[in-house]
C-alpha cells in the first residue's frame, strides 16, 4: 500500500518505531525549530515551497556567477555614490544615529572629519557629527564595505572591483596598532591616512591601470589553499597580491615605499576580500521570494541582516562583545560590542565558513583543526550550495559552504559563525583580541516574519 515500502524518519521518541526493522529507520536528533519560537517556525515552513526553492536557485547562481575584478584604486569622492555631496562620511553596519554610536566608531568618524580638514579639533568634529552638519550613512548603502568602524571619507582611496557594469568599493587597510578603524585619530593616524591618500592610493592605481585586472575570486581561491580563510587570516592573499603587483611597483616612483607598507601588513588583502564578497552578494539583492542572506554587518551596537527577497531592508538586533582570546592585559570587560562589515565574507561563504581551510587560525581563536572542520561542516547545514571557486583541500576539495538560507537557519537553529577581531571599547586603543561570534537569532526570526508578510500580502 505504501509505495517504496515503509521507511521511516523518526522525529521524537524512539519507542514509536520499536517495531520497525532498524534498517528502515533514521532517527532524527530533533530539537525545537526557530530557536523555540513556534510562530516563526510556522512562518518558515509555510515559505518552504517551490517558489522559494526556485528563487534561491536563481539567487545563489547569480552570486556564484559574479567574478569581481580589481580594476582601479580611486579617490572615494570620484567613485562611491553618495559620498561626494556635502560632508558625508560612511560607516560600517546597519544605520545608526551618532548619539547611539560606540566609542571606536565615533572616534573613527572624528578622525575622518579631522583628516578631511572639516573640523578644527576633535570637539568641533564631534559637535558637527552630533548636530548632523556632518551626515553619516552606512557603507552598504553606497555599494561599499569597511572593516571594524568601516569609516570612509571622500578623500580616501578605495579599491574598485567590478564585474559587468556593477562596482563595489572598500577602503585600503591601514595595518594594526593605532588605526582609524579601531577609533584612533591622533597625529600618527592622520599622517598615515594622508600618506595613503597621497602615495599608496595613486601608486597602486598606477600599478593597476591599463593592465589585466586582478581576478579577486581566483586570488582568494588560491589563498584558501594556502591556509587563509579570507577574513581573520589574510597573509597568503596579501602575499599573492603583493607578488602580483611587485614587478610593476618596484619600477614606479615611491613604489618601494608602497612595497614596504604591504610587507608590513598581513591584513592588507582583507578589504579586497570584502569588496569582492559585496559585489557578488549584491547580485542577489531584490530577487523576489529568495531567502538568501545578502549582508551581515555590525555597527558596534546592532547586528544587521539583509535578505534577497526583502531587498534593502535591515533586520537588526543588539550585538554583544565577541568572546575570544584577548591580548595580554585585556579581557571581555574591555571589549567593544562586535563591529564591522567584514562579516560580508561569511555571508559569501569564506571567513568562519571556511575555517577548515585555515588550521593555523584555529589556535588564534581558541580551537583545534578538528573544531575548524566541524565548523565548516556545520555551516553546510544552513547554506544553499558549495562555492565552486572556493574548494577546501581538507574537505576533499568540496566547495566552501556558501549562501546562508534564512529558512535553514530557523529549521536547524544553527547560527552563522563569524570570525572577528575584537576592538577595545574606548576609541583608539585598537585591537585587543580575536574570536568567533555567531549572528543573533532574532534577526533571522524577523527576516522570516517579513518574508512571510511579503508573501501573504500578494
Amino acid at each position, binding site marked *: 500500500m*505504501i509505495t517504496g515500502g*515503509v521507511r521511516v524518519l523518526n*522525529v*521524537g521518541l524512539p519507542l514509536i518505531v520499536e517495531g520497525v526493522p532498524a534498517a528502515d529507520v533514521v532517527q532524527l536528533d530533533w530539537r525545537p525549530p526557530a530557536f523555540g519560537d513556534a510562530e516563526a517556525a510556522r512562518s518558515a515552513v509555510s515559505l518552504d515551497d517551490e517558489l522559494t526553492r526556485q528563487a534561491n536557485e536563481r539567487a545563489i547562481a547569480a552570486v556564484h556567477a559574479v567574478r569581481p575584478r580589481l580594476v582601479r584604486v580611486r579617490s572615494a569622492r570620484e567613485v562611491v555614490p553618495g559620498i561626494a555631496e556635502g560632508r558625508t562620511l560612511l560607516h560600517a553596519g546597519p544605520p545608526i544615529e551618532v548619539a547611539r554610536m560606540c566609542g571606536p566608531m565615533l572616534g573613527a568618524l572624528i578622525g575622518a572629519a579631522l583628516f578631511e580638514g572639516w573640523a578644527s579639533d576633535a570637539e568641533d568634529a564631534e559637535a558637527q557629527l552630533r548636530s548632523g552638519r556632518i551626515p553619516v550613512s552606512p557603507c552598504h548603502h553606497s555599494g561599499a564595505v569597511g572593516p571594524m568602524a568601516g569609516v570612509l571619507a571622500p578623500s580616501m582611496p578605495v579599491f574598485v572591483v567590478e564585474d559587468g557594469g556593477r562596482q563595489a568599493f572598500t577602503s585600503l587597510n591601514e595595518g594594526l596598532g593605532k588605526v582609524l578603524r579601531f577609533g584612533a585619530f591622533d597625529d600618527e593616524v592622520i599622517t598615515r591616512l594622508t600618506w595613503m591618500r597621497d602615495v599608496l592610493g595613486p601608486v597602486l592605481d598606477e600599478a593597476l591601470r591599463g593592465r589585466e585586472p586582478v581576478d579577486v575570486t581566483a586570488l582568494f581561491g588560491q589563498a584558501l589553499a594556502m591556509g587563509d580563510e579570507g577574513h581573520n587570516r589574510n597573509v597568503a592573499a596579501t602575499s599573492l597580491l603583493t607578488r602580483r603587483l611587485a614587478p610593476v611597483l618596484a619600477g614606479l616612483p615611491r613604489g618601494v615605499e608602497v612595497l614596504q607598507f604591504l610587507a608590513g601588513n598581513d591584513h592588507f588583502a582583507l578589504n579586497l576580500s570584502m569588496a569582492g564578497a559585496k559585489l557578488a552578494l549584491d547580485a542577489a539583492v531584490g530577487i523576489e521570494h529568495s531567502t538568501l542572506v545578502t549582508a551581515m554587518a555590525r555597527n558596534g551596537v546592532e547586528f544587521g541582516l539583509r535578505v534577497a527577497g526583502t531587498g534593502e531592508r535591515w533586520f537588526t538586533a543588539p550585538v554583544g562583545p565577541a568572546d575570544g582570546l584577548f591580548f595580554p592585559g585585556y579581557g571581555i570587560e574591555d571589549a567593544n560590542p562586535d563591529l564591522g562589515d567584514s562579516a560580508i565574507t561569511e555571508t559569501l561563504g569564506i571567513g568562519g565558513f571556511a575555517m577548515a581551510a585555515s588550521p593555523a587560525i584555529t589556535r588564534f581563536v581558541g580551537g583545534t583543526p578538528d573544531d575548524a572542520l566541524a565548523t565548516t561542516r556545520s555551516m553546510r547545514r544552513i547554506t544553499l550550495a558549495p562555492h565552486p571557486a572556493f574548494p577546501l583541500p581538507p574537505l576533499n576539495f568540496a566547495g566552501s559552504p556558501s549562501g546562508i538560507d534564512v529558512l535553514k537557519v530557523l529549521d536547524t537553529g544553527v547560527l552563522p559563525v563569524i570570525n572577528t577581531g575584537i576592538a577595545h571599547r574606548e576609541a583608539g586603543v585598537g585591537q585587543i583580541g580575536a574570536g568567533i561570534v555567531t549572528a543573533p537569532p532574532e534577526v533571522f526570526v524577523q527576516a522570516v516574519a517579513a518574508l512571510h508578510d511579503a508573501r501573504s500580502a500578494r
Partner: protein
Amino acid sequence: MSSPHTETLQAKVFPRLYRDSVALMALASSIEKREGVLRAGAVMATPGNLEILGRSQMLPPDLTAAPDDLVLVVRAADEATATDALEAAEAGLTSAEQRGGGSSTEVAPQTIAEGLDVTGEATLATVSTPGTYAPVVVEQALRQGLHVFCFSDNVSLQDEVRLKRMAVDRRLLLMGPDCGTAVLDGVPLGFANAVRSGPVAIVAASGTGAQEVSCLLDAAGSGISQLIGVGGRDLSGQVGGLMTNLALDLVAADDASEIVVVVSKPPAPEVAERLLARLERLGKPVVACLLGEADADGPVAVRGTLEGGAAAAAALAKKPLTLPRDGGDEDGSSTPLPGRVLGLYTGGTLASEAKVVLGRAGVQAEILDLGDDQYTAGRPHPMIDPSARADRVAEAGAQRDVGLVLVDLVLGFGASADPATPLADAVRSARTTAAADGRDLVVVGSVCGTAADPQDIAAQRRILREAGVVLQPSNAAAARYAVARVTGSLTTESTQLHSQETA
C-alpha cells in the same frame, strides 16, 4: 524532617539543549529518588513549562531562559544536596550528549530535510515532538512527500484540518494528531501488536480500540492487512472524516484487504451519514465498530463494542472468534458483590468499551482513563510507565466502597517491557489492604496482546493470575464478568460471546 528555613531551590539553564519530555521526566524522577531531594524538575523552558514550575514553587525568581533552553531545578533539604543533585542531573544529560564525537563523523540529522539527505528512500515520518511544534514538523514532512504518523497531541483542530487537507491534496496519509497505532504493510508504528497478517483492514480513530480489535482477530486465527490510525477527531464535524476517507480509498484499492473494519467513537451525525453511505459503496464487506451504538446488521454491520466488531469481522473471514475462559475463581459467585466497580484503565478506548458494557447492563461504575491528559500531566503515558496506574490500583485497596477493580493490560511495541509486574504488585498490595479490613477485593482484567508480542503474553498473564487477578479473554468479557459479579448473576455463559458471532 528538614525545616523549611534550610530548604533550598537551585536551578541550572542549559542553553539550546533539547531532550524529549519522556527523557526529562525520567531524569527528574531519578533525581527525586536521591536522599534529601524534595522535588526535581527537568523541562524545556517553554512559557507553559515555566508556568508549571512557578505554580509548584519550583521557579527561582531570577531564572531567565529561552523556550529552547533546558532547565534543571532541584528543591532539596540543603545547599550541598541540591548542588550534588544538579551535578548528577547534568551528568545524566551529558552522557547522552557525548555520542558520535570523532572529528570525521558527520552530525546526526536533525531536521526532516537533513534526514532525507541521509536516506532519500524515506516514505513516512513518525512525529512525537511536543504539540507546539508538531504542526511544523508534519507540514515539513508532507511538503517533502512523506506520509505522516503523528503521535503528538495538543495540536489545534484548525491545524489538524489544514494539514489533513494538505495531505489529502497530495494523497498522503496523515495519521493523527494523537494517533497511537498503525500497521502499514506489516510494519507496526507506535503502540501496535505483532498481529498475524490476514484479510482484515482496520481504519481506526482510536489507538487501543484498534489494538483490541486486531488482537482479537489474531486470537480468532485471522489477521490484518493494514491498520490505519486517523486520530480521535477525524470523524468530528470539523474534520469531517478527511483521513478516514483517504484511508478507505487506500484499503479499497489494496488487494491484501478483503474485509474492512472502521473503529471509532460514534461519529458526528452529519459525518456518520456520509460515512455509512461511503462504506456501503466500498465494494468490500464492512464492519462499523462504533462504540456504544446499538448492534445492527445491514449492508454495513454495526457493532457497539470492540469485541463485537472483531467477532463480526472474524466471522466474515470465516475464522469465528471463540474465546476460552482464561480461568479465575468461581467461588461464591451467585451472591451480589458488595461495593462498587472502579475501572483503572491505561487504554482510553478500552475504558470506553467497559463503560458501554456496564452501561448496557445498567451497572453504575467509575471508569477512569488514566492515559487522559488530566491524569498524565507531567508524567509519561501509563502504557509507557505503568507505575502511575499501579499506584492507583494499590490505593483502591483502602477504598472501602470499592468491591471490584477492572483493569486492562496492553502489550505490544511501544508498551512497557513488563507491565504485568507493577500491576501485580499493586493488586497484591490492594488485596492485602482490603483483606486486613475484612474485605475481599475482586480484580478483573484482560490482556490486550498477541503471542508474537515482545513481552511474552503467557508470562504476563501468569504474573497477573498469580497476583489474584481474574483474567478474561477480552476487555468486553472482563466487563461482563464485572457485571455478573456485582449483580450476582454469574453463570458459565455470562462471559461468552453473542451466539450469532460464534456460530
